[in-house]
């Protein structure tokens, strides 16, 4: 606390000191600048350098040659065409740049000139303008009425101009929470084949989709992992039989932070020293604990990944949804369903 006070004092002193030194500095500047007013910096020098002219000519010839090379490379297809074209194009411009710069420094007259800075301010013109503006409103008696009416007009026409933008997008309504998952929806892979419980083994994750959903539907993708049922500590109200049959867990694959796909699975190869299994988003490294309902254990995400209850078809071993997600999928907004957290 004391150091904080000292810090504040320091900041204050710094600001005050800055002002003082600024004033001193300004006073210094009032005087004649270093070097004095009467130095005339103007110079003119004609280089008359035939060797530089020759160099410029050679560089210009090289530019032309590179230009021809570009055309030839486009006619005669060669391997690594992009690289050769870039080289020819780049060297061409490089040679032209060198030619222009050498010419600008060694061939044409070098001059240091002085130009008066134009005085562009004119207080008289300002006064006259203000006066003219004032005169333009001469003789108007009902100013308040006109100003009010103009305000109404501005609001009305402004609203009318903005309103068409509304058709750009639909209402949010419940679109985000309307995912393709229903009780009994089959879990399939990217090619539409059913995912079996046996396909999901400990130590790796499997990406599943709702059967029949579009690949572009963010409500569909889930990440499936298998953990030892004894380590599971799911939130209250999620009995293991419905939410984690045989230790199988499904969470929405869309990060609750900024909608990237959860595509990293940290799994300890040596339990004693390495941290617990975690689902990680590769964008901002939000880290979720699958054993505890995908609770956030590190990173910026503000809520757990929504969980999907699962059922295993006794006959086929296929995975099916046992209902909808435990909350809204994807990034948060005003009415996000936090899933009882």
């Amino acid at each position, binding site marked *: 606390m004391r150091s904080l006070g000292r810090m504040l004092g320091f900041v204050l002193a710094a600001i005050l000191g800055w002002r003082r030194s600024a004033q001193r500095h300004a006073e210094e500047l009032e005087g004649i600048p270093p070097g004095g007013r009467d130095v005339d910096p103007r110079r003119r020098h004609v280089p008359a350098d035939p060797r530089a002219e020759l160099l410029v000519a050679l560089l210009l010839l090289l530019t032309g040659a590179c230009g021809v090379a570009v055309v030839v490379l486009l006619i005669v297809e060669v391997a690594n065409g992009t690289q050769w074209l870039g080289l020819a194009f780049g060297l061409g411009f490089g040679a*032209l740049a060198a*030619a222009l710069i050498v010419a*600008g420094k060694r061939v044409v007259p070098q001059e240091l000139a002085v130009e008066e800075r134009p005085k562009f301010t004119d207080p008289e013109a300002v006064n006259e303008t203000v006066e003219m503006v004032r005169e333009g409103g001469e003789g108007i008696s009902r100013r308040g009425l006109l100003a009010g009416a103009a305000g109404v007009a501005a609001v009305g026409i402004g609203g009318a101009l903005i309103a068409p933008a509304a058709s750009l997008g639909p209402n949010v309504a419940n679109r985000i929470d309307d995912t393709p998952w229903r009780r009994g929806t089959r879990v399939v892979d990217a090619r539409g084949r059913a995912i079996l419980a046996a396909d999901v083994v400990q130590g790796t994750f499997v990406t599943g989709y709702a059967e029949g959903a579009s690949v572009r539907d963010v409500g569909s993708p889930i990440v499936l992992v298998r953990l030892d049922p004894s380590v599971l500590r799911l939130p209250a109200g999620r009995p293991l039989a419905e939410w984690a049959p045989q230790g199988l867990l499904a969470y929405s694959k869309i990060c609750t932070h900024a909608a990237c796909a959860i*595509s990293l699975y940290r799994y300890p190869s040596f339990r004693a020293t390495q941290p617990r299994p975690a689902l990680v988003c590769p964008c901002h490294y939000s880290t979720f604990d699958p054993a505890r309902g995908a609770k956030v254990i590190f990173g*910026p995400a503000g809520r757990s990944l929504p969980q999907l209850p699962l059922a295993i078809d006794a006959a086929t071993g296929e995975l099916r949804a046992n209902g909808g997600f435990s909350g809204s999928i994807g990034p948060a907004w005003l009415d996000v369903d936090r899933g009882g957290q």
Partner: protein
Amino acid sequence: MIGRARRANAATPAAKAPSGAPGAPRANAATPAAPPAPPPLRPGAPPGDGRVPRAGDATVGWLDERVGAGRLARAAMRYVFPEHWSFLLGEIALYAFVVLIATGTYLALFFESSTAETTYVGPYAPLQGQTVSVAYNSVLRLSIDNPVGLLMRQTHHWAALVFVAAIVVHLLRIFFTGAFRKPRDINWMIGVTIVTLAVLEGFAGYSMPDDLLSGMGLAIAYGVAMSIPILGANLAFLIWGGELPGANDFVSRLFIAHVFVIPALLALLIVAHLAIIVRHHHAQFREPGNREDNVVGAPLWPAYALRSLGLLCAVAGVLLLLGGLVQINPVWQWGPYNPAIGTNGAQPDWYLGWLIGALRMMPALEIHFWGHTWVPNPFFGGALFPLVVFAVLYAIPSLDRRLRRDHRAHHLLDRPRDVPRRTALGASFFSAVALVFVAGSADRILITFGMGYTTQIWIARVAFFVIPAIVYLVTVRICRELRRLG
């Protein structure tokens, strides 16, 4: 050699020599303090002065009789550019913009802005027969089938990186030399707007190919848009035309923003920026003979024009070499976008690094009560942080006026050391942004140097508050020492 004596051409062979020998100090007390009148300009080519009429005379004459180009051209050719390497940074940005327009126009002729599905059939075997979007397909065809397409696309991408980089370094130069002060404060505001638009433009550009990297970037942008308090979801749905990854016309929206709306605004602002520079004439450093009311330097014609054109060609040349020889954004390797796929090691273009850093550094804070989430987490790093940074940038001229109690116009630049506290506050502010930028590459640092990701983020969180203070103190000290030395 003094200008006046040399400049007097054959028309006035007996031009009166200036008072005092050339080069000698004009200590004569009787000489008025007013600067010597500018030397008489080279007269036009009046008929009958013995000169052979040249093509230039005809052209300028033709234009002069129609738009009065003579006086304009005369003034332009004698326009003086003070010389310092750091004054070229803005020119580099301008020339990168020229390259962007040229290459971008070429690319726009081939890009198809639709996310409708199609099947890739072409020489790139790994994607053969895969379902991809029309947009992605057109970028693949441009890059692989068109002999100059890849060169143009890579040059365009490199030019975008250089464009923003040159603007940022130019902005730092303007800040640290005090060139943002009145009357140039208006140009500072325009410049800050240009850099904001340039970042948006770049993001829209690399989001268009609809490859995996595009999609991941857009997903984050969607998350940030959603996170705007209260209105976020509506706003995101307006921009994307629905839920992520957006309506089929979303790529068209990006396209029209990227090739028309933002570039038109940028071009307009760049023209305004340059017009205002011409109105003020360039600022210059405090050197012998340089005053608030004059400009000392090379006139446009001929040397400066040649050198500046040379810089244009050099920028184009370097960008073409980069575009040809150094791979950038290999969209075929990323593969098409699918919202269910992510990859490690996806990094945005450099100028978004500070935003990804802020998103990554932010602790898992989300403000929710009464059943609503009022401030979702991405808002802090993805919206609030850049808003604060840009607000500070916009406020710099007025902050400087207040802190220094200096409301006058300035045309002579400060050396950074001569204003230690401004320099130190600026260095402190920019170091905070730079630190967040570095934190944005924590995953790369982990892979390259093996330093734990979590450790790095915690260090960055602490350093965000500590480093700027240290930078402030050290900079003040360095400025004082430099000043003492001269």
